[in-house]
Structures are given as C-alpha cells and as structure tokens.
C-alpha cells in the first residue's frame, strides 16, 4: 500500500477514497474561503465548490463538485442515506427533504443552491433520545408502507403537509401528498397515518 517512490505527494485512488471517507463531517479540500457571488468566470468549474449547510441542526462544510445534487451530497458526502434515490428525475418524491422548512426534491436541487440553508432530512425528525416523531409513529401504527423505500420521502412530505395546513381533509391530504409515489399503493394507510399524526402534532 505504501509506495517508496520519491516523486512528490502520493495521490493514488486508494488514499483519495480513504481521505474522502474520513472527512464526511467536515471536508476542507480548499484552503481559501468560498467565493460566494464572485464572478466565477476565471476559475475552473471543476474545482470543488464549498458549501456550508446546517443539516438536522448540525453544521456541515462540504467541498464537492458543483454538479452534485443535494441528494448525492446528503447520501455520499454527509453520510445521511435516509433520503432515497428513486427515479433521480423528480417524479417519485422518494428524495424529498426540507430546505428552510419547505419541501424540495433533493435530486433536482444542486447542493450549491443550498449553501447557507437549513436542511431537514428524515434522520432529523426523531428526538435525540430516540423518541419517534408523531408522523413516524403514525406510519408504524397504520402500516403506512410495505417495502418502505418511499417512506422517508413520504414522512418528510407528510410533516410539511401538516405544517402547511394542508391536512384538513382527506382530499387535501391526497392532493398535497401527490408528489410522493408509492408503488406498493399504501395510500389509504398513509392518509390514515397523516390524520392521526396531525392531531398529535397540533397538540405538541
């Protein structure tokens, strides 16, 4: 693994990957501050783009390719694999996360666009002591999933649906949850779960 050639810094694929893996929390590949709002015409667009975001109340500094979507940044760089990649084209809603309280499709959001913003993923809903969010508990109580792949997106979306005040009737719940597809067709149970969680979330 250690090579003994004397030709400058040793950058192999292996130690690059090891470095990347070890620095999931705070990646600092650049020693100069992020160039926000600077006319970025001269710099090579392949240079890492530095973002500072708060994810689930923790600060993350990531130096990533500017093309990285928020979903890939969360899953591959921040180590938060709760948000799922379903279609990667914004059709299924499995990747739904909250950015400053608004639900967005993280697969169609650039991580660079969320610099300085506050992101909540499904990992950030439960309390520190492990107590589930009322919506998570309601999904369990009502069997609101079968395979569970869409569930992180469904739960995040459902929390926002209630917070937006769009959970007043079954019709509005179905309308405002229509961006989240479930191929197991657990929709009736999802609606029931949201109705249950709504009352608990209002009581909280």
């Amino acid at each position, binding site marked *: 693994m250690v090579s003994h050639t004397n030709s400058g810094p040793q950058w192999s694929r292996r130690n690059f990957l090891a470095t990347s893996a070890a620095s999931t929390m705070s990646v600092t590949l650049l020693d100069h501050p992020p160039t926000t709002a600077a006319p970025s015409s001269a710099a090579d*667009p392949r240079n890492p*783009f530095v973002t500072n975001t708060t994810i689930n109340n923790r600060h993350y500094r990531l130096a990533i390719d*500017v*093309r990285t979507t928020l979903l890939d940044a969360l899953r591959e760089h921040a180590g938060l694999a709760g948000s799922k990649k379903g279609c990667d084209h*914004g059709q299924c809603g499995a990747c739904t996360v909250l950015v400053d309280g608004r639900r967005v499709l993280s697969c*169609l*959001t650039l991580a*660079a*666009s969320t610099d300085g913003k506050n992101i909540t993923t499904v990992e950030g809903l439960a309390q520190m002591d492990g107590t589930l969010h009322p919506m998570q508990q309601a999904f369990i109580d009502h069997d609101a999933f079968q395979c569970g792949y869409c569930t992180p997106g469904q739960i995040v979306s459902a929390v926002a649906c209630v917070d937006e005040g*769009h959970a007043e009737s079954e019709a509005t719940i179905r309308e405002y949850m229509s961006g989240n597809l479930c191929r197991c067709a657990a929709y009736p149970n999802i609606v029931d779960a949201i109705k249950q969680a709504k009352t608990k979330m209002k009581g909280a």
Partner: protein
Amino acid sequence: MQPFHFARTADAKSAVLMHGSSPKDASSDPANTSAQYLAGGTTLLDLMKLGVTRPEQVIDINDLGHPKLAALNLERMAFD
C-alpha cells in the same frame, strides 16, 4: 452533466448582468446557450442530467423571492 460555473444572487439586476456577461455560444442552438437561470430546477437540472442542456454558467435566482409567485393560492386553484 458537464461542469459549469455557479453563481447565486438575490438581486434581479445582477442576475441579468451576469447572464449578459457570459460568453455567447458559437452555435445558435438555444439548448446550448452558455448561461442559464436556475429557478425551480425541475426542468433545467433534469435536462442537464440527460445532457440535453449544457450551460457553461448557471445563475441561481431562487433567492429572488418573487412576491407574486408566493401569493398564488394553490388551494383555490385545485379545489374551487
């Protein structure tokens, strides 16, 4: 997706200036314009992933916070 320069602004004027100052593409194909505004992103990023649109510069204008868009009443549009 091809690499691009990324800029974000909350000011409409600077967004237009940035768009205007980006180098013009030699081809006349509108899909290959060198600068693109990024608003919602549901179309632009999808097309960029597929390689249909290949901008050299992306100008994020999500922070403009257009008041008229925020005032749209989706509930009434959907149920009235």
